[in-house]
């Protein structure tokens, strides 16, 4: 290994840490949260890489990628003083290093150990982030296993490790401004170096201030030095000993033919870059330094950096660690991890999108000045010009709205990153062979929708593997290929995202499902249901067709939760199954939650919005269909169903003089699988509304999901049907006999 000895890095890490500690706590938190975000990205890279290895790939770049990601996490952990994290990732790193050097075999036990270690690392990071207790037992146990594995390791490669003698050294020397005060004359340093070998020095004067600001006793210059024919590292270190730590970095320039060692240099280089960034952020932003880096960048993966890679919304913030994932050409697909934790709401936005916004805002400013100009100068065609200006304003507002919405959009692959691992683990446990196919992973959707859909998707995949795909023997007997296929496909259709989870397994056993539903009293035995209605019963709470309850799925919670979650996001899920051929779940989701379509209604003197996604129909109440049960609740007979009537004005405490419900309007809405009727006074129309937060300046309100601003500038509240049902029944909706819970979607 030719990278810098660790002893050179440690003190620096400590210095950085000390400086960090001196920082304002808010900034510290922010830096930490960036570290956690990036660590999650890193974990996803590691996991995807390990899974790739378990599928038989032995690409050295893959292993390098995993190593780098672990290394970055370790480095960051060190900066923030997380000792447990550093020690654990160090063990992991050591094992990976052996694997990389082909001194340790990549076999199933090792991969399993690595995967578990990565899980533990993830849990450790989560615990650090949430400031919760660490699971020391697991960590210790895994540490021991890692150690044991290291003891076992034996070289498997035919390639012996070759010691490399570096042929030159790259030194960047940027003295502190006050270096002269400590009698550190850069000239002495340069002269000392010159005595060691051949010196090529490039001056970097970008720190030089304007003449007026120049302080003669401060140093503004920096140097990039290439030192060749130097005796050894120690001699250079001796010279460096005179220079303040932090103002100088050295790295070796390796011979080009040894990619792995080049990688090491890269690591050291990255580490340096990060440390410098923390101490002198203003320097690192300078293009001159970037040039130096790229020049000596002879690594093969350099080209990967230049390939367009649109799925990664890069841009902010420009921390050097970000370079790590970008370089992983092989792992493109899994570079980005889902922001799993809900602790923080940060989002990465491409710089180009922000530039577009800035341009748009510029346009708006121009239009504003134009409009005020028109309004002040009386002219004959003032009205026409005003109208034209307003048209322009409308157009730009619309574009601005779309651009801002786009900033919240992320490729759906964020929600899919956990799936390959899940399929891998489950197929081993259930002794099934499954091929996972993911299509359309660049389809974009709103960040909030994405976070909400991640768990339902996991569940559908689990369900498909557990219930759908048969064992290899069963499949062969049924004349199917041994390996089952699980396909996840995402497409955009209009304002919706369609996600389809398809398996080629045994399909839904309709007769059995219907039998259970009748036995549970959910379906009238006399009722005739069509196929879609029967299949829809899988979403019913309390119906699970598995005879034995497995710990994967099949406790009767699951698909009903999937449907509920999807509905909470304003979407819907349905199932289509062909016995013996397979099952397909189709999730339809709105692209964004920031704008919804709704029905504007009047209740007493207030206007409310009912989201269109939950409304079924609005009808005029006929008195004879109303009935009141003993508990005092009112019901409305609609076809074969009895629908609870909710007097919203009463539930909301609005003053009212209502006695008689005859001739009033009832808006039938879907409250998580159950229909209820909301009493409204007037239907005012149907419109798109921008959802505003109530929590920003107030607090959540039961029965209200948000607010919006109407055309007249007034606030209108958006009804939350589930909350209103809670208000009405205190969480205990009355049970009514019905034939089928709901018509199939």
């Amino acid at each position: 290994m030719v990278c810098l000895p660790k002893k050179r890095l440690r003190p620096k890490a400590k210095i950085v840490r000390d400086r960090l500690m001196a920082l304002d706590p808010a900034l510290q938190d922010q830096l930490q949260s960036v570290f956690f975000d990036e660590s999650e990205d890193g974990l996803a890279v590691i996991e995807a890489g390990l899974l790739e290895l378990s599928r038989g790939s032995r690409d050295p770049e893959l292993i390098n990628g995993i190593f780098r990601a672990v290394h970055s996490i370790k480095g960051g952990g060190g900066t923030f003083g997380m000792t447990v994290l550093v020690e654990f990732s160090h063990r992991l790193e050591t094992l990976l290093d052996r694997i990389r050097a082909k001194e340790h075999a990549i076999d199933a036990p090792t991969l399993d150990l690595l995967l578990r270690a990565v899980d533990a690392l993830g849990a450790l990071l989560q615990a650090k982030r949430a400031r919760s207790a660490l699971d020391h037992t697991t960590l210790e146990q895994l540490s021991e296993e890692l150690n044991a594995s290291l003891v076992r390791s034996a070289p498997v490669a035919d390639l012996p490790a070759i010691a490399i003698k570096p042929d030159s050294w790259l030194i960047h020397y940027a003295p502190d401004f006050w270096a002269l005060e400590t009698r550190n004359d850069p000239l002495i340093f340069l002269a000392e170096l010159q005595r060691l070998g051949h010196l090529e020095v490039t001056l970097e004067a970008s720190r030089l201030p304007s003449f007026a600001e120049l302080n003669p006793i401060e140093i503004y210059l920096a140097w990039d030095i290439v030192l060749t024919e130097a005796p050894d590292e120690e001699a250079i270190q001796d010279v460096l000993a005179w220079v303040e730590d932090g103002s100088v970095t050295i790295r070796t320039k390796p011979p080009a033919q040894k990619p792995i060692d080049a990688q090491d240099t890269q690591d050291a280089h990255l580490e340096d870059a990060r440390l410098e960034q923390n101490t002198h952020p203003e320097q690192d932003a300078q293009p001159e330094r970037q040039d130096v880096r790229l020049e000596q960048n002879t690594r093969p993966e350099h080209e990967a950096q230049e390939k367009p890679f649109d799925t990664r919304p890069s841009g902010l913030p420009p921390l050097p660690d970000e370079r790590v994932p970008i370089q992983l050409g092989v792992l493109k697909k899994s570079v980005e991890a889902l922001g799993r934790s809900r602790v923080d709401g940060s989002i990465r936005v491409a710089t180009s999108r922000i530039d577009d916004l800035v341009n748009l805002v510029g346009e708006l400013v121009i239009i504003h000045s134009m409009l005020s100009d028109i309004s002040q100068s009386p002219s004959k065609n003032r009205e026409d010009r005003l109208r034209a200006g307003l048209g322009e304003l409308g157009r730009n507002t619309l574009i601005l709205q779309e651009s801002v919405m786009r900033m919240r959009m992320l490729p759906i692959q964020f929600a899919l990153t956990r799936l390959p691992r899940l399929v891998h683990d489950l197929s081993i446990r259930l002794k099934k062979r499954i091929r996972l196919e993911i299509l359309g992973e660049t389809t974009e959707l709103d960040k909030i929708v994405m976070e909400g859909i991640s768990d339902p998707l996991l569940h559908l995949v689990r369900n498909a593997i557990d219930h759908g795909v048969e064992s290899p023997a069963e499949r062969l007997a049924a004349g199917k290929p041994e390996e089952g296929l699980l396909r996840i496909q995402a497409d955009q259709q209009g304002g919706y995202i369609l996600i389809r989870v398809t398996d080629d397994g045994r399909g839904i056993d309709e007769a059995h499902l219907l039998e259970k539903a009748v036995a549970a009293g959910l379906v009238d035995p006399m009722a005739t249901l069509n196929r879609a209605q029967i299949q829809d019963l899988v979403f019913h709470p309390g119906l699970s067709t598995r005879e034995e309850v497995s710990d994967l799925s099949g406790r009767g919670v699951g698909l009903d939760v999937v449907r509920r979650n999807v509905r909470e996001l304003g979407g819907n899920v349905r199932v289509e199954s062909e016995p013996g051929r397979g099952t397909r779940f189709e999730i339809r989701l709105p692209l964004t939650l920031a704008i919804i379509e709704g029905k504007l209604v009047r209740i007493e003197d207030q206007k409310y919005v009912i989201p269109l996604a939950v409304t079924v129909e609005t009808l005029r109440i006929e008195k004879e269909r109303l009935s009141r049960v003993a508990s005092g609740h009112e019901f409305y007979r609609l076809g074969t169903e009895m629908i609870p009537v909710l007097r919203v004005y009463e539930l909301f405490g609005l003053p009212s003089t209502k006695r008689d419900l005859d001739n009033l309007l009832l808006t039938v809405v879907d409250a998580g699988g159950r229909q209820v009727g909301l009493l409204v006074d007037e239907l005012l129309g149907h419109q798109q509304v921008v959802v505003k937060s109530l929590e920003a300046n107030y607090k959540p309100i039961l029965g209200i999901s948000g607010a919006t601003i109407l055309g007249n500038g007034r606030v209108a509240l958006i009804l939350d049907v589930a909350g209103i049902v809670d208000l009405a029944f205190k969480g205990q909706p009355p049970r009514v006999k019905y034939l089928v819970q709901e018509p199939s979607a």
Partner: protein
Amino acid sequence: MSLRTKGQRPPTDDLDDESEEPEVEFLTFRIAGEAYGVAIDRVQEIRSWEAPTRVPNAPNYVAGLINLRGLIVPVIDLRLRFGLKPLPYTDTTVVIVVKTQALGRSRMVSLAVDAVSDVCRFPESLLRRSAHMGDHGDAEFIQALISSVEQALLVLDVDGLMGSGELAPEPGPS
């Protein structure tokens, strides 16, 4: 430079210009004949009354929600908050939008008051922290008392007003 050159004299004469001690500035307003003040750096703007949108099942002193340039901001009726008799909202009813800070969250709230009076400066020495102000309904929201020859002013604790009871923000990041 002395404070005098700022061009605005303190409204009180009892301590004249020798005092270079820091001053505090308040927006003063009236509720039921009583003078109150809120630190001027908390005041976002003053608006005339407009009927807000009702909040379901909210305490009676939450008059409703208004649209403040795209933000949804609650309106608190200070009269009702202090347990006084309600007064019908009229053209002179004024709404003061203030910034509050509670449980690590900063929120905006608008306060409906009878009328806004003035902006006053006081030397800091006149500010007396209130331990307990007696049995008024407003006692728990009064942070300090200022009394000078001309007037007595109750300084409103806007953070306390929004930081406790039913108006306290939901814990956790949002």
